[in-house]
């Protein structure tokens, strides 16, 4: 009998690992190194020749107030939407684990936002938030919140959801939360069902009511999983520009500009590849920190 390939774990390991190694090198490592290279060069869409310029791209990016606005917006966008995603995700997770009739259709509907392509769902949101034909505004007019002298919010006929800086940011956050909450809910369902049923029963016999059980037993027990969901979502939010791009294009007047969209506008739309790469690279240390935090949280869960 000869030793076959299947009997040699070392060789097999290499064969099985090869596709992912190739994939990571081609689609992660090469673009990353390329971005570092571009960030230190004067490459533009019109003139692709590589000339070393040192840190001048960074200096130019930092000198632009829009960069700092975008950085601030990125943090606001991420922190607010993650807080809401975790809170709503927990509520939704409680609904998903509850037993009631017609549970399957609720589960299906809950997961729908996550499975719908961003471009598609953002376009329907674009219509919902339209400056003139918004159905939300229509409903608000019907119940007397808008459109008359004694209206509760303002006498105008429309809210201009995407036109006012504050409302535009709120709209972007709302759509993003709507999109990410199902994912967070599913992750937290996994955390909830992993809690032994007897813990809840013991707390019930010990005399604890619903809220005490929720805040003293359930939430502390899902906290590590919730932390993973939050960090995962934070990375996702940090690197995502689809919602901003479709809804507001960064406007009005850069009020919803985030780092990714700003890098895209500068590097691709504006053709200044060098500066676009420099802005995009600014995300790297932040994402690295988030990734380390995730790994730490996972490690803590294993210890328990």
């Amino acid at each position: 009998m000869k030793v076959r390939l299947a009997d040699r774990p070392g060789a097999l390991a290499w064969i099985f690992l090869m596709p992912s190694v190739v994939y990571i090198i081609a689609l992660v490592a090469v673009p990353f190194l390329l971005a570092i290279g571009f960030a230190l060069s004067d490459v533009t869409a019109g003139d692709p020749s590589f000339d070393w310029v040192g840190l001048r791209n960074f200096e130019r990016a930092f000198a632009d107030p829009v960069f700092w606005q975008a950085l601030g917006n990125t943090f606001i966008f991420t922190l607010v939407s993650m807080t809401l995603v975790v809170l709503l995700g927990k509520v939704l997770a409680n609904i998903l684990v509850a037993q009631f009739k017609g549970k399957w259709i609720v589960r299906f509907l809950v997961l729908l936002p996550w499975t719908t392509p961003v471009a598609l769902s953002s376009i329907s949101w674009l219509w919902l938030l339209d400056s003139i034909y918004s159905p939300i505004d229509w409903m608000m007019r019907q119940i007397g919140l808008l459109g008359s002298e004694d209206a509760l919010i303002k006498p105008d006929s429309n809210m201009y959801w995407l036109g006012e800086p504050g409302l535009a940011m709120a709209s972007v956050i709302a759509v993003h939360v709507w999109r990410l909450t199902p994912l967070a809910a599913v992750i937290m369902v996994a955390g909830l069902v992993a809690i032994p049923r007897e813990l809840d029963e013991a707390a019930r016999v010990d005399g604890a009511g619903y809220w005490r059980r929720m805040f003293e037993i359930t939430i502390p027990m899902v906290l590590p999983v919730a932390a993973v969901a939050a960090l995962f979502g934070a990375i996702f939010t940090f690197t995502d520009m689809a919602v901003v791009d479709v809804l507001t294009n960064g406007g009005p007047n850069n009020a919803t500009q985030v780092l990714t969209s700003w890098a895209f506008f500068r590097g691709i739309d504006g053709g200044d590849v060098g500066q676009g790469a420099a802005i995009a690279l600014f995300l790297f240390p932040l994402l690295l920190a988030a990734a380390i935090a995730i790994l730490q949280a996972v490690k803590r869960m294993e210890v328990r």
Partner: protein
Amino acid sequence: MAVVEVKNLIKEYPGGAGRRRPRDRGAVRAVDGIDLATEEGEYLVLLGPSGCGKTTLLRTIAGLEQPTSGDVLIDGQIVTGLPPRARQVAMVFQSYALYPHKSVYANIVFPLRAAKVPKEERDRKVQWAAALLGIGHLLERKPRQLSGGERQRVALARALVRQPKVFLLDEPLSNLDAKLRASARDELKRFQQEVGTTTIYVTHDQVEAMGLGDRIAVLSDGRIRQVGPPSEVYDNPADTFVATFIGSPPMNLVPRDGVIVGFRPEHLLPASAVPEDHAVTIRLAVDRVEFLSGDRHVYGTALGIGEPTRVVARLPATLDVAVPVGAEHEFAVARERLRFFAKDTGKRTEAVERL
């Protein structure tokens, strides 16, 4: 101290998940019409094989399950519809169900905080409960840093601390190793005598039941077979189920025209060891002898008392009679040790005159 009573309690689980019609095949009656009452401060043990409904009965008393019909009464008040926290009961789970993210102190104080007890009193009661169970030095630890025996004490302290009317214990010793179990059993009994709280204890282990219970309720298939003190349940079993479930090895049952004759292995002795005037002689075709911690277990076929049946005799270490394997041997049972059961129902009947 309190009296716990259940009246005509029935708990039915619907068969097969997703079936709409309740009377579909597979609907299971976990508790099938149980009437039972404890006495003040009594230690009542629910004993039965797994799946007999004993844990369901306990959980229904705790309020974790709603009965299909029937009532639960604590101190004469119907508590059937009340949630667990309104019942003033404390439960120790088989897994102990300690809160893993809380320290031992926080675990024990939890029921007091839920009951909104003032802080100083809480502190005093935790110290009292911890001292009673000898875990005062562990209060800062987390449950995962404790041994099995220590966890069990923490669970007991948590149950004890708000001085409930009733303790409900669901196989609290089954996660301990054999040696620890014996000492924990002893402690559990002393502890209950000290605090004097009515206790309902669920187990499938007859040794625990015999050792701990003031009375034992033997359950099978959701029904109570017999309730009585350990000696009564052991010596005068109500039916063949109780006779064979309790005792190790179980009671020998020999069919004999219309009745079943039962006798405990330790009462089947060589004829020379039984006073002749009221002995019933049995020939035993011995085929195997086991030595178990000093006793001899003699396996063989009983002849001449009824149909030939395999039986076991347990000879105490003090008896020196030789019992050769492969031969017939004269054995005997004292007449007053014989028990009789009806063949069709398995229930106890009157003694048969001719024996």
